[in-house]
C-alpha cells in the first residue's frame, strides 16, 4: 500500500468526509415489507425517502446528488483500470478482462454525466486519484475491493432514487458492477457472493471513507 494521500482542498475533503447522515435502514431485508406497501411511486413527492435520501446531499439534490455520487465512484474506477493497464503488471487474458471492465466503467461515466445533465444538474468533477500498483495480486485485491464496494454503493442508493427512469439505468449499471466483482473474486479464489444469497448495501459514508485514501489534492 502506498502512503495514504490526504485531501488538501478543504471543500473536496469535506465532501468526501462529511456526508454521513442517517443510516438508510435499507439493509433491513424483507422484514418490514408490510408497513410500506401502500406507498405510491407515481408522484415525485410520494417518493421521498424515509431515511437515506439526504446522504448524497453534498453531491446535489435528489437524484442529481445520487447520480453525481455514482459518477464520482465511476470516475475512480475508470482511472484505476486505466492506471492498471498502463502499469504493465498484467498480460493476456487478465489484461483483456481489465481493459474490458475499464471500458465499461468509462461507459458508465458517460451515461451518468448525460443523465445528470438531462436532470438539469451539473456533473461532478473528476477527482484526481492515485492508486498503489505494486504487484498483480495486490492490484487484483484492490480491484475486487473497489468493485464489491461499487456494487454495494449502488445497492445502497437504489431505494432512494426518485425517478423510475433513473432507477432503471442505475440498476442496469448495478448488476454489471456485481458481475465485475464476481469475476475478480473468482480470480482471487474468493467467494463470488461474500454476503451470501442477499447482497448487502453500503451507505455513502462507508463508501467515501473507503475511497478517500486514493483521492489526491
Amino acid at each position: 500500500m502506498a502512503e495514504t494521500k490526504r485531501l488538501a482542498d478543504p471543500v473536496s475533503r469535506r465532501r468526501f468526509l462529511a456526508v454521513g447522515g442517517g443510516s438508510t435502514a435499507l439493509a433491513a431485508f424483507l422484514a418490514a415489507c408490510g408497513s410500506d406497501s401502500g406507498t405510491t411511486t407515481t408522484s415525485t413527492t410520494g417518493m421521498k425517502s424515509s431515511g437515506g435520501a439526504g446522504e448524497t446531499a453534498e453531491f446535489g439534490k435528489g437524484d442529481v446528488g445520487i447520480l453525481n455520487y455514482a459518477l464520482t465512484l465511476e470516475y475512480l474506477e475508470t482511472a484505476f483500470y486505466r492506471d492498471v493497464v498502463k502499469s504493465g503488471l498484467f498480460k493476456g487474458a487478465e489484461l483483456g478482462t481489465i481493459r474490458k471492465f475499464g471500458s465499461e466503467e468509462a461507459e458508465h461515466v458517460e451515461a451518468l454525466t448525460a443523465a445528470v445533465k438531462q436532470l438539469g444538474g451539473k456533473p461532478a468533477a473528476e477527482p484526481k486519484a492515485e492508486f498503489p500498483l505494486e504487484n498483480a495480486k495486490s492490484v487484483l485485491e484492490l480491484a475486487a475491493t473497489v468493485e464489491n464496494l461499487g456494487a454495494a454503493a449502488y445497492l445502497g442508493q437504489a431505494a432512494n432514487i426518485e425517478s423510475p427512469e433513473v432507477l432503471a439505468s442505475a440498476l442496469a449499471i448495478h448488476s454489471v458492477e456485481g458481475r465485475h466483482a464476481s469475476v475478480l473474486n473468482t480470480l482471487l479464489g474468493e467467494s463470488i457472493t461474500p454476503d451470501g444469497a442477499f447482497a448487502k448495501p453500503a451507505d455513502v459514508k462507508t463508501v467515501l471513507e473507503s475511497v478517500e485514501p486514493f483521492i489526491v489534492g
Partner: protein
Amino acid sequence: MSEEQLAHPELAGVGVDEDSQDLSRSEVILKGALAAGAVYGTLMVGPYVRRALAMSGGGDVEILNFALTLEYLESKFYEEAKSRAKASGELKSLVSLLADDEKQHVEALTATIKQLGGKPVAAPKFDFPYSDTSGFLALAQTFEDTGVSAYNGAAPAIESKEVLAAAGGIVQVEARHAAAIRLQNKAEPAPQAFDPPLDEKKVLKAVEPFIA
C-alpha cells in the same frame, strides 16, 4: 391506455404482444418503456412511464410472484444439477453454492409475499433438456442472464422501498452467478456495460419451454 394518449407512440410496440393474457396492456407498456429508457440511457420516457405506472394495478405481490416463478426454476435447476450435470471440482462447488442461494431466494420471496398479504404462486413442474456438463452450463447461462434482466426490468415498478432494496440484493447475486457461470463457459462475464432489462412477457416466453 389508447395509442393516442401516448407521449412517445414509437414505444407503443415495445414488449407488447396481442395475445397477452396475463398482463394488462398498461403494465406491458410500462415495462417496455422502462426497458427503452434504460437501454438508451435517456430520461425521455418520463411522462409516458408515469402515466403507465398510474394505470398499473398489479402491485408488488404480482411482481414478487413473477420473481418467485423464476427462482423456483433456478432452484430446481441447480438442485437437479447436483446429480445430473456431471460437474466436478470447482464447478461442483459452484453448483452447490448456486442451488443454496436460489433456494434462499425462493424462501425469502415466499415469506415476503405472505407478509404483504398475498398468496405465493405454486411451483410449476420443470423439464430441463440437457445431458452433459456443457448442456447444463449453456442453460445455466441463459437462466442467470435472464434472471438479471428480469429483475432489472421489473424493479422500477416496485412500490415498497423495502421490497425494492431486497430485490436489489437478489439481482446483484444473480449477476454474480451469471458472471461465474459465464467464466465456466469461457464466455465474456460482463458482456455489456449495461445489463439490458427484459419485460415480463419476454421473460415468460424465455422460460416457457422449460415448464412441463
